[in-house]
């Protein structure tokens, strides 16, 4: 058990900077997920923690030890690879026992621990098999078994589920969650799948182009994305972004768009004041749009020309055009809508986000209204 700390870590491959000045603290026993599109540097960070890549600048600490110059074998970590990396010439038993044998653990102890791990992972009847005789899910379990049997300070997972089919992935995801709940070992988990990130992580670190964008709990990433990238990356279908200009009307701040106008509530307006007169982006998630009541044509209504209708059974995803910008909405499946229809949508007033167009940073989240209301309530109570 140990903390993992990255201090201003940079990794350069020749002239290419893969990881830029990343600082991150993974608490003891925490499940931290690194997520981002391919090439964002998440795997490089994991490999640096493992000791498979050298750190160009900065420090990596595991527990209270600076490990920059410690070889992988002495870092007391275990890693699960995307393609499992099982030793093909060894049986499942030997694969799991290999690390213990190298550490000269006594034979009976090895046997006990291998069997215990195999039992826990449901592969006890496969111990004599060779990896090529196993299915993808079983190989995955062996790879996990090889990691947990050593009882290391830190688990590292490099996209461990991406080679499994969709159904098995969901099952293994749940198993990994359960496993962590049982073992409580500090874990760093890399994935490009935001659903995996949200379901597994205590906290999620979002990366893009080697730069850490935001680290927070899944719910806070969803509610309070720090910038346009995080807002668009977390959540599916992705958040809608509507260009607007921040102006003042009747003493109130408004985000004025092509055919809509959002008034910024006074309680949170001070945050936006500095951006008066600048171009902004209004963010609204598809699930926070509903069809407007007939005849309701307030200034914050969005009227789209429907282009795509995707009935998913449990919900209806509609994509349409709003003055040249694509807008998606996640609606009730009972709604009758066809391609070519005009559809007026009404956003939930506390679910809007406002970003600065130039820096792409978040200016404010209307969600803060709910927070403030809750705080108020608690204070009164």
């Amino acid at each position, binding site marked *: 058990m140990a903390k993992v700390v990255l201090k201003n870590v940079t990794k350069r491959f020749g002239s290419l900077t893969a990881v830029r000045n990343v600082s991150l603290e993974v608490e003891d026993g925490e499940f931290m997920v690194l997520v981002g599109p391919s090439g964002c540097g998440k795997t490089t960070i994991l490999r640096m923690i493992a000791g*498979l890549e050298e750190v160009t600048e900065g420090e990596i600490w595991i527990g209270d030890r600076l490990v920059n110059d410690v070889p*992988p*074998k002495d870092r007391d970590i275990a*890693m699960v*690879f*995307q393609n499992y990396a099982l030793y093909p*010439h060894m049986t499942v038993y030997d694969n799991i026992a290999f690390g213990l044998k*190298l550490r000269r653990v006594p034979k009976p102890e090895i046997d006990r621990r291998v069997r215990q791990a195999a039992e826990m992972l449901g592969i006890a009847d496969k111990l004599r098999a060779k990896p090529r005789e196993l299915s993808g899910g079983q190989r995955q379990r062996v790879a996990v078994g090889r990691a947990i049997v*050593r009882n290391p300070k830190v688990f590292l997972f490099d996209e461990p589920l991406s080679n499994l089919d969709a159904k098995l992935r969901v099952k293994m995801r749940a198993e990994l969650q359960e496993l962590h709940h049982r073992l409580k070992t500090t874990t760093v988990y890399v994935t490009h799948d935001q659903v995996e990130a949200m379901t597994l992580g205590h906290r999620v670190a979002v990366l893009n182009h080697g730069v850490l964008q935001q680290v927070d709990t899944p719910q806070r990433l969803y509610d309070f994305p720090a910038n346009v990238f995080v807002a668009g990356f977390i959540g599916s279908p992705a958040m809608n972004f509507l260009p607007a200009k921040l102006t003042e009307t009747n003493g109130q701040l408004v985000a004025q768009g092509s055919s809509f106008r959002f008034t910024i509530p006074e309680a949170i307006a001070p945050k936006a004041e500095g951006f008066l007169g600048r171009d902004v982006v209004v963010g609204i998630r598809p699930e926070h749009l509903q069809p407007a009541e007939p005849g309701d044509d307030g200034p914050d209504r969005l009227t789209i020309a429907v282009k795509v209708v995707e009935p998913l059974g449990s919900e209806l995803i509609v994509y349409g055009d709003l003055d040249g910008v694509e807008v998606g909405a996640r609606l009730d499946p009972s709604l009758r809508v066809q391609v070519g229809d005009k559809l007026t949508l009404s956003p939930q007033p506390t679910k809007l986000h406002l970003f600065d167009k130039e820096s792409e940073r978040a200016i404010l989240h209307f969600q803060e209204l709910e927070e403030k209301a809750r705080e108020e309530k608690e204070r009164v109570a």
Partner: protein
Amino acid sequence: MRTRPWTPWLYVAPALLVLGFYLVYPAMVTIALSFYERVPIQWSLGDLLRAPSCSALKAENSPQRGPCFAGLANYERIFTERSTQIALRNNVLWLIVVTSVTVGLGLMLAVLLDRVRYESLAKSTIFMPMAISFVGAGIIWKFMYAYRPPIYPQIGLLNALRVALGEAPIAWLTQAPWVNNLALMAVFIWIWTGYCLVILSAAYKGIDRDLLEAARIDGANEWQVFRHVVLPTLRSTIVVVATTMTVFTLKVFDIVYVMTNGNYETEVLANAMYKQMYSFWNFGLASAIAVVLFVAVLPFIVINIRRFLEQEAVR
């Protein structure tokens, strides 16, 4: 389309005919000849069939010329006469030393060069001697090993170096049995290590890098990674390269022929065979040596073919 049962044979027939004519027939004839003595240059199958027994001729002290049936006498000579005994001993020596050094060195270089920046340059350099004919290589190395009595300046590179360092020159190619035999083997190793290196390096690069990294994270040091992951993974390739090298080594001829012609206890079977054949016109004994070589090579060929079939079966 309907295929008649004999149609496949039609396609195979030309190859079978050519092989039969150039391989099977000569092999049979060689085996047959190995049981005769005094075979003249122009012999016929009829002569051989009508040939009297050698022992009978000798007993009668008969003046009759022409081939005689010797039974296993030629084989007996190979294993009892000093010159062929030396050849047999040297072939075993070559087999052990050359095969293990070429494969071992090739494997070591394959793993080490993988971590070097100028890998392809180094590999090409080591592979280069393969392009030189063995006769050419023999001549080059004859210069390397050249020896003159200490009162003269040394023209051989190795001895020149020794003299420059204040040592006495060594007669590399005449000092029997270790120095000269190892000197000859060094030439063979110089030529063939590149071949082993290239094949083993390709196999090494085929190993999934994650496998090596997984072992390192599991706690293995570099030697343990090599011993427990690289070596078992390369096992089948090593077997193929080693058996191939064994066959090449058993057949060694050119280098010995050019550099010492088998003198000073450097004889090998192939050179002994050549001498018996073309210097002494001793067809029977030469054929017997050929058969011994063939039988010695056979098991390694079988191993290679078996492995090949196994691979096919896996596919």
